[in-house]
């Protein structure tokens, strides 16, 4: 956020939240206020206990809450309100991000070229020619879909870009893609852990990322965070939210989306209408980011498979925290002529209707609808928490549908799915977890069988009405698809998912097969494959 807006957004976010609480209190006011201050103190103290011995910020927080606690004993309603204001402002101050034009220019011009130079220096043999160096990163970031449509909407309102999330690289790659499209930078929330990575923290701090501390569990903090996003949208900052909330652990395209930040879109829209802004409309642009290889695939799928991992929301020690690993990944990305493919889906309004190029909402039959009518009561725009929550649910379903439709199936996904499916069918008596651990009766399958299975999976995907898009390499013959996937697996992972030896393909890291194959979840592949065989039953061993 630009310096001229930072203070306004900080004060506005904190004040609105506290005002809302105070307005909802029943008399005597001090009882409710004290409960809210105490609740916040409780959650913050618990957090600080968990983080004991952490950074200097934790010590400052401890001292701050200690002072609040001391004042709490003899506080009047006015004192309590003041304490709440202080806490909310403290949260808002931490959240508010910065934007530095100079850093943005540096990152979008020098960094991609610099990265290519760096990659060449690391592995000169892998970069085929000098031309690939000249083109830099832009050669490997492919943007497709409704690019022109999105550009046109920029003149008509504020954008909320909502991408799939499978890597910490997403925000960087997407930020670069937005630059290539000629759009202004997006404001986005990044986990505090990202600010700890020395390579990226400088850019996070200066490219418009605001800080999201997912360890803060108090309701007041979450409200201030959401209100900050709302104010930013009202100030016409195009935003980026990851609606999945965190990176997809399983590798699948997100279908259960978090409604918290997403709900700020409808809230900001009502605010815009009420304040009679010239361009009150908000446009939600779903976008899928597809990688042939997953930078953090091994850590993520391990985390997914661990029972305890389901609660380990924030991973601070994954591949992204190791600069050499990131560079190795990027090097392979370039040398393999692989691409990150970003697909922009059809833009939506805040209740999930499609929007045309003029920025008008369309009903399911393509008729123009007045979007403001959804949030109006007798013609006047009004906030209605329950209604808006349901609108956000509708929006969320529409985004999930677009994710499935525009997800890009690649060779690694198809071969990962096909190979694991073959292993499962060969070992019908084993549950998935045992199979992943042991590999079943045979460590390998024949390359020709895998090619046949790959062909069947590609065929079933093409028949699916829900999507996905198919990458160019899937138009090749099945053997070439298998070769392409195996080459990619071998290029980056310490323990490749599968390797070819002679005429056989050995499944060496089945967790990774599951991770890549899961990208094709949601298309009823099991059923479609069974239908193709004329069978009625699902293949043995349901997928996790």
């Amino acid at each position: 956020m630009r310096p001229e807006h930072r203070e306004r957004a900080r004060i506005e976010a904190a004040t609105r939240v506290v005002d809302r609480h105070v307005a909802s209190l029943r008399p005597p006011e001090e009882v409710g206020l004290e409960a809210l201050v105490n609740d916040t103190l409780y959650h913050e103290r618990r957090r600080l206990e968990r983080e004991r011995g952490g950074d200097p910020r934790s010590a400052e927080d401890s001292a701050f809450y200690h002072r609040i606690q001391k004042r709490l004993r003899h506080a009047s309603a006015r004192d309590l309100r003041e304490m709440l204001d202080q806490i909310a402002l403290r949260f808002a101050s931490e959240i508010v991000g910065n934007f530095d034009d100079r850093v943005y220019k540096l990152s979008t011009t020098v960094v991609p070229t610099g990265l290519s130079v760096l990659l060449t220096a690391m592995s000169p043999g892998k970069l085929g020619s000098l031309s690939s160096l000249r083109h830099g990163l832009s050669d490997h970031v492919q943007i497709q879909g409704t690019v022109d449509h999105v550009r046109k909407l920029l003149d008509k309102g504020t954008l909320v870009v909502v991408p799939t999330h499978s890597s910490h690289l997403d925000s960087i790659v997407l930020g670069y893609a937005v630059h290539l499209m000629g759009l202004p930078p997006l404001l986005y929330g990044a986990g505090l852990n990202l600010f700890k990575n020395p390579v990226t923290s400088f850019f996070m701090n200066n490219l418009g990322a605001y800080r999201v501390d997912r360890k803060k569990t108090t309701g007041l903090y979450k409200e201030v965070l959401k209100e900050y996003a709302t104010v930013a949208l009202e100030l016409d900052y195009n935003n980026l939210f990851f609606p999945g909330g965190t990176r997809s652990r399983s590798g699948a395209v997100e279908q259960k989306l978090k409604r918290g930040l997403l709900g700020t879109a409808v809230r900001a829209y009502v605010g815009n209408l009420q304040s009679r802004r010239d361009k009150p409309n908000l446009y939600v642009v779903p976008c899928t980011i597809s990688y042939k290889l997953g930078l953090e695939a091994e850590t993520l799928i391990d985390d997914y498979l661990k029972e305890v991992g389901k609660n380990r929301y924030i991973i601070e020690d994954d591949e992204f925290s190791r600069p050499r690993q990131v560079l190795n990944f990027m090097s392979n990305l370039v040398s393999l002529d692989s691409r990150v493919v970003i697909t922009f889906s059809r833009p939506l309004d805040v209740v999930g209707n499609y929007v045309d190029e003029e920025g008008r909402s369309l009903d399911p039959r393509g008729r123009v609808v007045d979007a403001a009518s959804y949030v109006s009561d007798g013609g006047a725009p009004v906030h209605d928490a329950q209604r808006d929550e349901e609108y956000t649910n509708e929006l969320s379903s529409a985004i999930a549908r677009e994710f499935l439709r525009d997800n890009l199936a690649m060779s690694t996904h198809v071969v990962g799915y096909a190979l694991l499916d073959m292993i499962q069918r060969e070992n019908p008596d084993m549950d998935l977890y045992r199979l992943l651990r042991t590999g079943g009766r045979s460590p390998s399958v024949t390359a020709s069988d895998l090619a046949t299975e790959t062909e069947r999976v590609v065929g079933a995907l093409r028949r699916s009405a829900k999507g996905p898009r198919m990458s160019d390499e899937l138009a090749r013959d099945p053997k070439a698809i298998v070769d392409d996937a195996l080459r990619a697996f071998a290029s980056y992972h310490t323990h490749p998912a599968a390797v070819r030896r002679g005429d056989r393909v050995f499944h060496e890291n089945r967790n990774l097969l599951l991770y890549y194959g899961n990208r094709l979840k949601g298309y009823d592949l099991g059923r479609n494959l069974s239908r193709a065989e004329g069978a009625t039953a699902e293949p043995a061993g349901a997928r996790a």
Partner: protein
Amino acid sequence: MTRDECIGVIGAGNWGTTLAKVLGDNDKRTLLWARRDDLCREINETRQNSKYLPGFSLGPSVEATSDLERICKSTSLLIAVVPSHTMRETARELGNHVNGEHVIVHATKGIEQGTFKRMSEVLREETCVRKIGVISGPNLAKELAARQPAGTLVASRYDEVFERAHAALHNDYFRV
């Protein structure tokens, strides 16, 4: 909520006419939609729907019309009561006139032939309306028209839908 003085009932069959009668008993201004002009004329002139609800008179606040657009402009609360096999066609027509502020409560039993979709799904697919609900209960039209005590349920994801349906239909013989 008493935002709208007027309520639209889409469909003047047995159940639609009965619900219009309940609304009339509640003194709510009601526009009852029938596709056929002759049926509208009969209702407006005789206060009766002799084909679908013979023997019962509709209150003076009920007016029949075949003009869907007029209904949609007059009210934002619509009660859709057409047979399930004509719901899609009617909803598509309705879709030309409604906006996001409209609320539709349907009282049609059954699912769509062929697609097996619920009526609320059909309404969702054919109109821009989001605030959709359903009214259903162990109700018989003749008993309700005779003001025999009955209860029914309104379900929706939107609080506004059941609040407004309740405000329109609930009375001392019909508990919503």
